[in-house]
């Protein structure tokens, strides 16, 4: 992680205020700000307006890989040392469906987690933080150099921030 950039950290009590602030920041052309919320919140999310998370793609690919490897594993291993049991075909696909299914789930789930970690890591943003944001406050951090702080401060205060401070 790079050294913490300086910027404005505002904390809100009211969700609609925070959302309002977000919208105005965006209108003013700020992009790289960060919103902290104790719980996922639709209003904020809508205001920030991200596209749907690419994690779902990981899930899909993981699942398909699992399914494929499930069949590959079972069939290859069956023919690697062919042994007849119970007069059944050596590569009996039907029972192998169970293995394939389980691997689908396993790979799918693991891939999802990896996706989650990867994307959260890729989209991480350094900035000031306050533990209250994990409790009951909503925080907005707008990185900006000291000389250009006033407009942002004003904007946030006006939007109804409880407190606004400059974090160096």
């Amino acid at each position, binding site marked *: 992680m790079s050294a913490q950039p300086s910027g404005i950290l505002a904390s809100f009590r009211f969700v609609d205020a925070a959302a309002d602030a977000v919208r105005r920041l965006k209108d003013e052309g700020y992009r790289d700000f960060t919103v902290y919320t*104790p719980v996922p919140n639709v209003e904020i999310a809508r205001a920030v307006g991200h596209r749907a998370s690419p994690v779902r793609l990981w899930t899909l690919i993981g699942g398909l890989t699992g399914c494929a490897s499930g069949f590959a594993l079972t069939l290859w291993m069956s023919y690697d040392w062919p042994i007849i049991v119970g007069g059944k075909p050596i590569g009996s696909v039907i029972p192998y469906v169970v*293995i394939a299914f389980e691997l689908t789930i396993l790979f799918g789930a693991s891939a999802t987690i990896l996706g989650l970690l990867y994307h959260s890591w890729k*989209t991480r943003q350094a900035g000031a933080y306050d533990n209250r944001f994990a409790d*009951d406050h909503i925080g907005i951090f707008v990185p900006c150099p000291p000389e250009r702080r006033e407009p942002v401060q004003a904007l946030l205060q006006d939007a109804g921030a409880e407190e606004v401070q400059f974090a160096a």
Partner: protein
Amino acid sequence: MATIVRQDQITRPTYHEITRDIAATLGSPSRTYYVLLGIVVAVFAVGVGALLYQVRFGLGVAGYTPPVMWGVYITTFVFWVGIAHSGTLISAILYLFRSAWRTAVYRTAEAMTVFAVMTAGLFPVIHVGRLWYAYWLFPYPNQRQLWVNFKSPLLWDVFAVSTYFTVSTLFLIVGLVPDIAALRSTATGWRKKLYEITSLGWRGTDQQWRHYTRAYLYLAALATPLVLSVHSVVSWDFAMSIVPGWHATIFAPYFVAGAIYSGVAMVVTLLVPLRKVFKVERYITVEHFENLSKLLLLTGMIVAYAYAVEYFIAWYSGNPFEQQSFWNRAFGDYWWATWTMILCNGALPLFLFFRKVRRSIPALFVLSLFVNLGMWFERFVIIVVSLSHEYEPYAFGHYTPTWVEWSILAGSFGWFFMWFLLFAKNFPTVSITEVKEIIPLPRKERART
């Protein structure tokens, strides 16, 4: 949803109160906690001792009496796997159904799931004749140049149970992360360090939430078919064989229902003392118990129906082996086990039709204990009684467990509760984040008026 509205009208806790109250449950443990922990560890130790004895002298020290080659161990394996199911049901399936009341109870259920699978996983190993070779059931390149037999239902089990363990553990951890982040600030000492590490630098940024909510959704979507599959696979251990009383198509749904049934019962068994001790009655309310007991009633009746169907088909099939097998269940040497099962699982839950019972926590607690007992006996009846009378009358047998098996069974409870107690004191057993989630954030307008 009715539940939630009602909660609104009474005192709706603020976000801060939630954090505070739930963090309080992690306060320094009382003496009783240590006493409890001591007891369960002791019980677990007894189980370990019995197991070592069995490993030294051979499985003969257990009560196995051919043709009954599977006994208490497999029974208990299925029992714990079953317990594991309600957790994922509540956390995943109800999540997809968006039923808000789950938020208060799912963490407990999920933890229970993980620990129950950890317990269940021990039993196939305890059960096999040469447990030091149990790892041969995994497909790994070995000097025998031999792979495993994927046609064997036991292999399916290996995959199903290990997958289930992995996925439910991931699910639990993912759910925990934001909560741990919320606890970071208040925690002190080594706990603080622990939380700082385990919260994986969670800050609840817009980006994190964006990926998190998606990931959680898809995990739930994957866990849902998984939870249905796992116990189906377990049931196929039996249904895929030709043993009269096992070889039935109804087994998968029958087992899944039974699993959820027993699991919900165990959730109740755990929640009742938990909410008292942790003083979280405000979050886990009678409403929650009523919902759980409705789930109990539903699954219980499915199970009872399955019992009825089994007997009907045995009669209707005209297959003398099946008929003898089921006659033997009801009126043979093991009649007491069968009737215990029918009483506990089929009859007692019918009391849940009365709202009074559904809303009386002591009643529910007692009932849940009976259901747990009944479900253990269900597996005992299916496994042992079916095996005792198969095709060859000359080879009929009668099995009675020995002290070794009983000790190991008790030990498994020790092991399970040991983990649960440790968990409950170090991680929030009620989800902070999700309980908050169902309470809207304060809004400016409303504050002005």
